[in-house]
C-alpha cells in the first residue's frame, strides 16, 4: 500500500497536518524532525513518555542496593574500624547515593533505547519515507494510506505548506 511523504520547512505545519490526518482516521503516520520540538512531541502519541519510569526504577534499585550492600558486607566479616559501628548509616549514605545515580543513569539509557525503539530498523538504511534532508533542516510527514486516499492526503499535505509531496511507496 502506498505512502506519501510531505516535506516541510517548519514544525508547526507538520503538527497541524498530522493532527488533521489523525482526525481523518489515518493511523499510519510518522514524523521526521531535525531537532526536538515540543509541538511535535504529543501529536502522534499524547501519552507522557515512559522513560521516567525507567529512571525512577533504576534510582530506587540503586539506593536499596547501595545501603544493603554496604551493611551486609560490613557485617559479613565484622572488622572493628576505628571504633565505628558496623552499620554506619551516615557513611553508607554516600554509597547509597552514588548507586542511585549510577543505576538511574543506566536505566535512563535503557529507557531511551526501549521507548525510542533503538537500535531502530536496519540501522538507518533509509527506511520507508526517511530522507537525509530530515537530518538537515527539513521536516517530514509520512502517511501510509489506501490507493483511493492518495489524492486527498496529497491535497491535505500541500494545504499545510508542504514544499513537496512524494509518493515514496507505490
Amino acid at each position, binding site marked *: 500500500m502506498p505512502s506519501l511523504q510531505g516535506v516541510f520547512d517548519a514544525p508547526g505545519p507538520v503538527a497541524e497536518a498530522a493532527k488533521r490526518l489523525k482526525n481523518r482516521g489515518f493511523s499510519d503516520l510518522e*514524523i521526521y524532525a531535525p531537532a526536538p520540538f515540543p509541538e*511535535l*512531541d504529543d501529536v502522534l502519541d499524547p501519552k507522557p513518555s515512559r522513560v521516567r519510569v525507567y529512571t525512577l526504577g533504576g534510582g530506587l534499585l540503586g539506593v536499596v542496593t547501595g545501603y544493603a550492600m554496604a551493611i551486609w*558486607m560490613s557485617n559479613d566479616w565484622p572488622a572493628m574500624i576505628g571504633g565505628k559501628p558496623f552499620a554506619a548509616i551516615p557513611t553508607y549514605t554516600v554509597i547509597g547515593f552514588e548507586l542511585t545515580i549510577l543505576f538511574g543513569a543506566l536505566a535512563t539509557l535503557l529507557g*531511551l533505547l526501549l521507548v525510542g525503539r533503538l537500535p531502530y530498523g536496519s540501522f*538507518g538504511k533509509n527506511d520507508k519515507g526517511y530522507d537525509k534532508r530530515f537530518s538537515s533542516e527539513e521536516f517530514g510527514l509520512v502517511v501510509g494510506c489506501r490507493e483511493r486516499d492518495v489524492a486527498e492526503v496529497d491535497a491535505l499535505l500541500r494545504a499545510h505548506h508542504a514544499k513537496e509531496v512524494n509518493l515514496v511507496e507505490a
Partner: protein
Amino acid sequence: MTPPPALPAALEHPHETSDSKINRDLLSVMDGVSPGYFLLLGTTILVVTAAALTWIYQIYIGLGIAGYTHPVFWGVYIVTFVFWIGIAHAGTLISAILFLFRAKWRNSINRSAEAMTVMAVMTAGMFLGIHVGRIWKAYFILPYPNQRGLWVNFRSPLEWDTFAISTYATTSIVFLFIGLIPDIAIARDRYAGWRKLLYTGLALGWQGTARQWKAHSRSVLHLSGLATPLVLSVHSVVSWDFAMSIVPGWHATIFAPYFVAGAIFSGFAMVLTVMIPVRRVFGLEEYITNYHFENMARLILLTSLIVGYAYVTEYFVAWYSGVEAEQSAFWFRAFGPYWFSTWTMITCNVVFPQLFWFKRLRTHVPTLFVVSTFVNIGMWFERYVIIITSLGREYDPAVWGIYTPTWAELTIFAGSFAFFAMLFLIFMKLLPVVAIYEVKELAIHERAHAAEGAH
C-alpha cells in the same frame, strides 16, 4: 542579560544549498587534518609516551622515585588528581544545570564541555592508579565476591571516591553519548567509507522520528536531573578525602562547598582555555559567540568570589579556633617555604578574576584566555597548598618535613595535560564538537519567529 544576537542571514535560505549551512559548518570541523593538527597530536602523543614509560618504571622500581618524605605521604599525583576532577565538573554543570535553568545559550558549548568532562575524569582516574603503591593489587578496592571472603571498608573516604568517580565517569559518558546520537545520525547521512560504518553503528538507527525525539528529550531531562546532584556530590566526596581526616588544615566543614565552587571555577576556566583557540582555529565564531564567553566570564567571577570567601573563612576559623596546631599550619601555608604556592593561588584565583567586573575586559577574548589560564594554574596550586603544606606541618613537630616533587612526578604531571589534549584532538576529528541539533533547534525557532513576524 543582552539578548542573543540575530542568527546569520545565510540560515534564512536553507534551500540554496543541498545541505544546511549549520551541518556544513559544524561537520567541516571533523574533516580534513592540517599538518598543524598532526604536529600538535604528535607532540601530545610523545609526552604521553614519556609519562607512560615513567609510570611503568615507577611500578617496577617503586614509588621511591617520587619526592615523598616522612610526613608528606601524598604529593603531586593526588594534587593533579583533584585538579582534573575539578576540571571535570564544568561539562556536566553546563549541560545539566544550565539545561535545567533553560539557559539556551549553553547549547553551542555544552558538547565540548561534556567531552572535556569525560576526558578529565579519565585523566583523573589514572592518577589513582599512579598514586597507589601496589597497583597490581588495586582491585582489592572493589567490593567483588572473592574466595578470601574479604570485603571493603565503606567507611573510608577513598572507598566513597571509588564509587563517586566511577559513577561520575559512567554517567558523563551516558550523558555525552545520548546527546551525540542525533548528531552522529547527521554525520552518518553525510559520510561515506569507514566513517559511514562507524556512525551507522553509533547512531543506533536514529531517524529523528517524533517518538525518538520525545524519548530523547525526556532522557536528557532526567539525566540532567540526576547529574546535577551528582556533580555536587562528586567533588564533595573528593573534598571529604581530606575533610574526614584529622590533619590540621584538612579537617574543615567548609571543604565540600569550597571544593565544589573551586571545581566549577576551574571547570569554566578550562572550557574557556580550550574553546577560545578551538573557535579561532575552526572559525566557529558564528556558533560560539562572545556572548557565550561573557556569560562564562560572569560565572568565573562569581565562583572566584566564593572561592576567595572560602580562603578567608579557612584562615579565620584557624585563628578563631584557638587550636595551636591549626594556627601554625596555616601560618606555615602563608609564610613557610611554600609561601609561593599560597600566594600564586590567591593571586590567580582571587585577584585576576576581578578584572571581569569590567565589561570591556570580559568581552575581550585575549584577556579571557590569559585570565582563564591563570585560574587553571591557580587552582592547581590551591590543591598543592591544601595537600602538601598541611601534611608538612602536622601534630608532631619532630617529624615536620619538606616535600619537593621529582622529575618522575613532573613528567607524569605534564603527561596528564598531554593526555587530555590528545583525547580532545582525537574527539574533534571524530565527533561533532558542537551540538548540531541543538543549534538547529535554536535556528529553526528563530526562522519560525522571523516568518511569523513577516506575516
